[in-house]
């Protein structure tokens, strides 16, 4: 079953093609490592899948929904972790309220995911999110994403701020997700995700230059 179907996706910023006719299908169960030099267009492609951009050419479908026209349907199926933890001013408990009310993910599920990464959310409930340490923020974002049990997980360099132990926890958690799903990891360190992925995509200059299933 196809989760994502991208056909000739082209996106320009100020005249320059940042995505140049990208065609890419993602099947349910595929775990993708997406690599490529800085500025290759990885984040842009992921944001296009999330419906943040109007395309200059081509089309994207997420389980047959259009990300810009049917964003709610699309985003129900995707859990996303951004490249940098955003300085959200909501407190931890408000953020969890937001997640619970918008996605139906229970706060207790997020809390137990966080526990598994040794982040004690109960102690930081009233703290504004942006005042958590870099690694704590990352852990919370990961906990939220995993607790959503989405069919597609999109991680834009999720481990940048994590210490080695936390990284281990994270990969263990990912491996223990027992339901069927697909994932995209954007990463510059293939060694780390090597054991987790079954497909590698290499992007450069807005194009997919290598696509190999392992």
């Amino acid at each position, binding site marked *: 079953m196809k989760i994502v179907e991208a056909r000739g996706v082209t996106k320009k910023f100020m005249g320059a093609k940042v995505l140049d006719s990208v065609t890419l299908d993602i099947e349910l169960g595929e775990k993708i490592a997406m690599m490529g030099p800085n500025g290759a267009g990885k984040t842009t492609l992921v944001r296009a899948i999330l*419906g943040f951009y109007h395309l200059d050419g081509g089309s994207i479908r997420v389980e047959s929904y259009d990300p810009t026209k049917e964003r709610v349907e699309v*985003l129900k199926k995707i859990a996303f972790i951004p490249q940098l933890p955003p300085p959200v001013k*909501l407190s931890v408990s*408000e953020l969890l309220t937001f997640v619970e009310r918008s996605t139906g993910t229970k706060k207790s599920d997020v809390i137990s995911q966080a526990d598994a990464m040794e982040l004690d959310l109960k102690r930081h409930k009233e703290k504004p999110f942006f005042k958590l340490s870099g690694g704590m923020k990352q852990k919370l974002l990961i906990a939220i994403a995993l607790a959503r049990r989405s069919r597609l997980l999109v991680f834009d360099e999720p481990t940048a701020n994590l210490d080695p132990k936390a990284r281990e926890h994270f990969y263990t958690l990912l491996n223990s997700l027992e339901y069927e799903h697909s994932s995209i990891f954007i990463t510059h360190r293939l060694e780390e995700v090597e054991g987790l992925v079954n497909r590698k995509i290499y992007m450069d200059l807005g194009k997919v230059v290598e696509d190999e299933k392992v």
Partner: protein
Amino acid sequence: MKNLSLVAYLDIKESLRARWFYVYAFVFGGLMGLFFISGITDSVVMGFTGLSRLLLVFIQVTIIILPIFILITTVKSISSDRESNVLEYMLSFPISLSEYYWGKLLGRFVTVFFPVIVALFVGVAWGLFKGGQMPWAMIFLYSALIFSICAVFLGIAFLISTMVKSHDIALGLSFTVWIVLLAFIDVALIGLMMQNRVSDEVILTVAMLNPLEAFRIGAIALFDPELTVIGPVAYYLLDSLGHTFLMIYAVVYPILLGVIFALLGYAVFKKRDIL
């Protein structure tokens, strides 16, 4: 639409923790305090006494600072959300763009409207305590005017924020809008009036299109003021259009304008890239 109230609620909670909100509440609260201390309620100046005078001075100061406060804080918070990728994260959850946009607008409205209204009512309470008469018409009119001025400037702020993505340009534009509406239009109109080259109707129309002028006139429409208090354009308008009409106009027109700007902002928000 269940997420609309969620977005609004969280925006209000966020504002209640933000520094700008305290400055904002402090300015309006402090203003009232200043009026009490300086004894504005006790003095008789230009024919206004006690509570009426207090409210009149309050509303005159509001005309100047409320718009710039609304514009700057709103534009700043929206564009910094975009630049710091908070918007990217929050909008990666399944909420529709309309829930997000209108929820934010609603939340903002509550946070900018209430401190001013509270300050107004505190002033009224103080005036009554000092033995004044309850100026019902004035309280009602001024609450309505504050409501409509919040509406129009929030509309403008949201439109600017969706149209201009650069933080600095958006702030600069806000400042320009404020100063033009506050001062330049009036100055220009007075100039034209004195030269007698443009017909009075044209001047009148242009003046009335400015929501701040409408507010200024509305605030004074309960009285028979002297020219010196409100400036020539407002005086002229009052004289030629009548008080009741101007009062209704001063409340309804800015609200309408605010709704139009907000809708335009929403159209831009939907049509363009979010980030």
